[in-house]
């Protein structure tokens, strides 16, 4: 059932492209020129949780397995071998064994072995003394008991309990294999991988350069001689530079709807694809800050939300209204619209919802003459500020007088983690369209990335339950039950999921934009230039 659904969606998305694109022989050579939107924090993918790092650096590495770079949807069915030639579960479904590809070398010439796999996951689970300075996805591996090796070409992951989604996490761009012999510090500044491109240099605020790995173990790949990333922080400048033909590709998801219109008119030859980013705009309410410790006020706030207005203003109606999981058709786990509309705060009759919200607020002593004053905190970046302004406007309708508090972007997470806010507006990206990734990371009690520190033991139990369920349909039902509970608890109301565009010039071939994640399709080993 699940594979049929995924196949149908994949086909519906890919078919027009497949029909329109003639089969061409790949050409070797040329340097891909891409602009980068900002200063990337480091070259160590495992230590970062941003597309700014994963997009340029994914080509340096290999994973054990990978989401097929040529298929637009990330699903368990699109997972293909990478460093692992094959994999197999044992009968108890708690041991996953990978057979590794022989004769693979790191960029510094040292051989890649199963020890490197063991080392990488020892670092991720805090068992290696040279552990990561930051480990944002530690929660992904909480079910991993140990990694054992059998010779140089076999590694086994031993789990505490069965977890069907476990393999999907290995396929993310965020899960490369690191070398044992290079320190975590060096991996931040001078990363060594087994991938198609070798890191050359990172000039802060200026550029990042990669060259072809001539000894790449996948024979004949990559096709490009190199990739030059140019950091251009000013959005107008970088889009103008793309229009002028200075770049072959834009940074992934950098093009908003208004900019897309500009590019379509000024560079009509450019190929632009609008796709869900799996980045949500969400409302965060601090349940420990009075009066928001009162769930009825939180409910009133949720009832005030008019999601359609948000997406009409922010994206000309292109974004998606959604619950926690990415909505269909691209999202595999999202609720259908009619089910979504039945969730608390998702009614399409906004006036009725707001009337109910006003009644709640009046019951708490608030009125038009006695409004609840609150600061709405958000990062000082336009993609945060703009929806925050709309939020303030909507909260006014239910006697909540919000004042925008723009927070220096560099201290945003520190402030939220400290709980130094009452109401805020945040953006959250999800790297794999899988309930384990999204739910554990953002809503489980022991996750460091659970920004609002929402904790409901019943929800945790349900998250564990769905995580072990092997039947897709049954698992989906549990996921939707969790969705309902999260909406009732107003854990982190999702306002919308963004759709953003990526553009490239016609000479760029072999690139397929993924439709349910922005973090997993930047290997570039299939990309070539038709010049």
């Amino acid at each position, binding site marked *: 059932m699940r594979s049929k659904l995924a196949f149908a969606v994949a086909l519906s998305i890919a078919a027009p492209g497949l029909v329109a694109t003639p089969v061409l022989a790949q050409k070797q050579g040329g340097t891909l020129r891409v602009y980068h939107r900002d200063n990337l924090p480091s070259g160590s993918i495992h230590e970062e949780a941003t597309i700014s790092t994963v997009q340029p650096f994914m080509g340096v590495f290999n994973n054990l397995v990978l989401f097929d770079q040529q298929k637009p949807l990330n699903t368990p069915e699109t997972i293909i071998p990478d460093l692992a030639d094959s994999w197999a579960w044992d009968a108890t479904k708690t041991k996953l064994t990978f057979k590794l590809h022989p004769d693979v070398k790191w960029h510094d010439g040292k051989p890649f072995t199963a020890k490197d796999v063991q080392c990488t996951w020892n670092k991720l689970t805090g068992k290696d003394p040279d552990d990561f300075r*930051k480990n944002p996805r530690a929660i992904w591996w909480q079910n991993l008991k140990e990694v054992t090796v059998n010779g140089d070409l076999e590694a086994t992951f031993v789990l505490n309990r069965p977890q069907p989604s476990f393999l999907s996490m290995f396929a993310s761009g965020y899960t490369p294999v690191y070398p044992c012999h290079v320190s975590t510090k060096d991996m931040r500044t001078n990363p060594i991988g087994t991938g198609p491109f070798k890191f050359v240099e990172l000039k802060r*605020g200026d550029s990042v350069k990669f060259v072809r790995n001539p000894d790449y173990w996948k024979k004949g790949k990559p096709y490009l001689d190199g990739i030059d990333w140019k950091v251009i922080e*000013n959005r107008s400048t970088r889009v103008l530079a793309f229009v002028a033909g200075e770049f072959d590709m834009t940074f992934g998801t950098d093009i908003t709807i208004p900019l897309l219109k500009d590019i379509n008119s000024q560079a009509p030859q450019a190929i632009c694809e609008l796709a869900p980013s799996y980045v949500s705009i969400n409302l965060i309410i601090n349940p420990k800050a009075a009066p928001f410790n009162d769930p009825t006020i939180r409910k009133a706030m949720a009832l005030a939300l008019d999601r359609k207005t948000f997406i009409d203003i922010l994206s000309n109606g292109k974004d998606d209204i959604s619950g926690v999981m990415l909505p269909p058709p691209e999202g595999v786990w999202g609720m259908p619209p009619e089910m979504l509309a039945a969730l608390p705060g998702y009614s399409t009759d906004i006036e009725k919802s707001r009337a109910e919200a006003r009644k709640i607020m009046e019951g708490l002593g608030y009125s038009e003459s006695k409004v609840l004053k609150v600061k709405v905190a958000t990062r000082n970046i336009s993609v945060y500020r703009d929806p925050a302004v709309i939020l303030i406007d909507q909260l006014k309708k239910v006697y909540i007088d919000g004042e925008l508090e723009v927070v220096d972007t560099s201290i945003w997470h520190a402030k939220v983690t400290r709980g130094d806010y009452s109401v805020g507006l945040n953006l959250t990206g999800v790297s794999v369209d899988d309930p384990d990734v999204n739910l554990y990371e953002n809503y489980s009690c022991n996750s460091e990335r659970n920004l609002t520190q929402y904790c409901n033991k019943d929800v945790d139990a349900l998250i564990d339950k769905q995580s072990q369920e092997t039947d897709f349909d049954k698992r989906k039902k549990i996921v939707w039950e969790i969705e309902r509970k999260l909406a009732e608890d107003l854990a982190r109301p999702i306002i919308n999921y963004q759709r953003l565009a990526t553009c490239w010039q016609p000479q760029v071939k072999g690139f397929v934009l993924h439709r349910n994640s922005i973090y997993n399709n930047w290997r570039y080993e299939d990309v070539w230039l038709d010049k």
Partner: protein
Amino acid sequence: MGAYIVRRLLLMLVTLIGMSILIFVMLRLVPGNITDIIFDSAGFVNPAQKKKIERQLGLDQPIAVQYVNWIGGLMRGDLGYAYVSEKPAIEEIVPRIPVTAKLAALALIFSTLFGVPLGVLSAVRQNTWLDYVLRVFSLSGLSLPAFWLGLLILMACVHWFGWIPIYRSTPDSPWQELALLCIPAAAVGFRSSALVMRLTRSSMLEVLRQDYIRTARAKGASETAVNYDHALRNAVLPVVTIIGIEAAFLIGGLIVTETVFNIPGVARFLVEAIRWRDYPIVQNLVMFIAIIVVFVNFAIDMMYAVLDPRIKYEE
């Protein structure tokens, strides 16, 4: 003169010590530090790891100790390590200085080459159509923000020439670099040239009304000799002062211009470093700028004596 120079140099030393304390303390008064920012790109903060990093970077030490360590390092030529890139700060700063220096020099040349002659022209043709046109030109220079002008130039270049004058890679030759820097230098120098022009004009108008100008004319001196040998020489003193001040303030204009034209200079880098609370970069760079400003001021004071023989720096 010698005693004055020694006194000025001592005063400069005191100023720089004061500046170093001010830079150091103010930087640490800004909320958040590098550890918050390091964690920001990971989307969470781990308090235990944060403390560990603070310890590694010496941020857990008392501020006075941190200051002494910095100054001690500075004396030894050790600027420390950049927090973000984890490279020696000097390796991050030094390659960027020439880029900004060239841009600033070009902008200053642009502002002087345009500002002074046009200011003189405006003064000697006071209340003519030329004066009015030049006054409008100077007013627009003062009122147009550099970033807006920069963007306008970029848009025009893309629209009409299908080309964008931004830094893509290190230029192959000095001429290519000059060509690339000319446009941003003009964008940033436009404002300075307008200021220089207005000041030259008003200063010239004042001088042209002096008795000795009338005497020069009565002696039969040509208009050119009157305007340039007698009037401009005397009117130029406040203009030199303003050019000196502009040289110091130029860094503000360059931040925006470097961003819009994507020039990997030190001005944009400084703002970025402030945003990242990269203390070793910020404090060393601001100190470097402070030294430049102090020395430029000193050089201008010395220049007064050259330009105006009446000025003597003696007891």
